[in-house]
């Protein structure tokens, strides 16, 4: 076993050296350089770990199980670097600059994330909010990467990073909400039979489902707070596949689900958008979804996973989470001021202009976007 572990650590050292060479050799946009530096540092730390493993193996056989576990950790990390994390650098292209600019702007406009490198890879919208050794990696669909319209979707993913940074306090807020939902679901009069037991289990299932749901609602709210109308339009446009499941799900699919029903997410966003001062866009989006629902003959029903009698508790929790994370807040006034100053540091006005242009002049949008992106990146 000793020899096998030594061989594995020597192989890992070779892999890491190769990875370092490839990372250094690749020409990358300047927005990606910090991420490459971070990856090189990770490689250096893990090379050190391998070297230490080789030393420890020679010290005493007592350490075999520990070195085995350490070797497993390094192996997994090298694989992670090779399969996913090095991709943003090794496959970097000048076309990545728009997404990198969006991520960098988000990180730099929040004191909690200033200095965190920007990186993304192809994929459905997602984030791996690594914060310890590596750095968060975002995923974004390849077609949407090149244009301005869907960039605001990064704001939602950024919400997941904010959650991780305040995890303990966020979890406490979610716990209080789960307790509140569970309490409010208890009927005024209770039976003392098997039906009552089943109801108790159902209440538990609903409150546990709300752990993930709350985080998604929080991230939606972060997106809207940061981006304003452009986020609502991007979110509605991207999520709205007009699939029946976007509007209604059977109870067995709601149970323990990772994401709330899309229609419900839109409803909550629309309600928030009205309070943030863009009721027209909110109405337009709400009507669009309602029209599809009516056409399919779908009535709103969340089978107790969401009800009006606990909506105020949900809203209050999301507000408290936003207060804690304190994201950049879009306002009409701020946008106007930034426009007047021609403040190129803010990307949000550009995304809002993009949606305005796209809705008012779809034919002329393509040419406008090319010029807007050029200005943004210059």
């Amino acid at each position, binding site marked *: 076993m000793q020899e096998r572990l030594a061989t594995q650590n020597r192989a890992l050292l070779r892999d890491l050296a190769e990875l370092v060479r490839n990372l250094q050799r690749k020409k990358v946009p300047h927005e990606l350089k910090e991420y490459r530096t971070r990856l090189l540092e990770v490689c250096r730390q893990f090379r050190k770990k391998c070297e230490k493993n080789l030393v*420890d193996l020679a*010290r*005493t056989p*007592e*350490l075999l*199980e*520990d*070195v085995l*576990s*350490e070797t*497993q*950790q390094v192996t*997994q*990390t090298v*694989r*992670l670097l090779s*399969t*996913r994390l090095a991709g943003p650098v090794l496959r970097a292209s000048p076309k990545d600059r728009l997404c990198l600019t969006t991520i960098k702007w988000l990180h730099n406009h929040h004191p909690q994330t200033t200095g965190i490198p920007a990186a993304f890879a192809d*994929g*459905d*919208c*997602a*984030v*791996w*909010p*690594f*914060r*310890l*050794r*590596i750095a968060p990696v975002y*995923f974004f669909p390849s077609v949407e990467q090149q244009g301005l319209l869907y960039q605001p*979707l990064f704001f*939602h*993913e950024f919400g*997941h990073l904010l*959650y*991780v940074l305040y995890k303990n306090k966020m*979890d*406490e*807020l*979610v*716990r*209080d909400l*789960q*307790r509140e939902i*569970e309490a409010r679901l208890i009927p005024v009069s209770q039976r003392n039979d098997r039906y009552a037991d089943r109801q108790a289990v159902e209440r*538990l299932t609903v*409150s*546990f489902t709300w*752990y*993930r749901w709350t*985080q998604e609602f929080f991230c939606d709210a972060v997106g809207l707070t940061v981006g304003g109308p452009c986020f609502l339009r991007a979110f509605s446009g991207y*999520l709205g596949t007009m699939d029946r499941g976007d509007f209604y799900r059977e109870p067995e699919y709601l149970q323990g689900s*990772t*994401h709330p029903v899309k229609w419900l997410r839109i409803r909550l966003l629309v309600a928030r958008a009205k309070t943030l001062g863009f009721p027209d866009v909110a109405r337009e989006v709400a009507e669009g979804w309602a029209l599809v629902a009516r056409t399919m003959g779908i009535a709103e029903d969340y089978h107790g996973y969401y009800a009006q009698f606990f909506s105020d508790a949900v809203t209050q929790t999301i507000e408290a989470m936003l207060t804690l994370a304190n994201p950049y807040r879009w306002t009409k006034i701020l946008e106007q001021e930034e426009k007047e100053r021609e403040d190129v540091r803010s990307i949000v006005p550009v995304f809002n202009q993009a949606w305005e242009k796209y809705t008012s002049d779809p034919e002329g949008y393509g040419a406008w976007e090319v010029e807007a992106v050029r200005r943004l990146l210059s």
Partner: protein
Amino acid sequence: MKNNEWLTAESFEQAHELLSAINTLSIHTKLMLAGIDDTERLGEVREARIVLTNFLTRFEQVVSEAEQRGDHRALGVDPRFGQLVSKFLATRSQWPQESPLYFTSFAEMQRLTNSEKKEDQKHLISLLRDLRAFVEQHAHSDVVGILGDI
């Protein structure tokens, strides 16, 4: 927006941090016990103790909350951590129980983690061994979630 990848990534990273701390402290304790100098690792050992102490504090808190609920599941806890707690409670209720992980109190685990006394070291080593096996087993699905399976 994709299937809660954030949750898998977070759990993967937490498990790595914890396992690294367990290994560091275990190696250091074994070397101390064998009378082999390990002063160069002292900084890492200090950090490892902090990571382990924080983990044990949080774990105890969630275990105690879960115990108070009939279903052994705590609220306000990410589902992966909640599963770790549920598994711990389920295993602890089995009899006979040989692993010190399940019959050592959390206060004692914390004391051992931070103890330099020779008489505590053997106990600490076996405790860390069982904790590592428990965490590694749990972390497997995150590893597959992040790295995939072929």
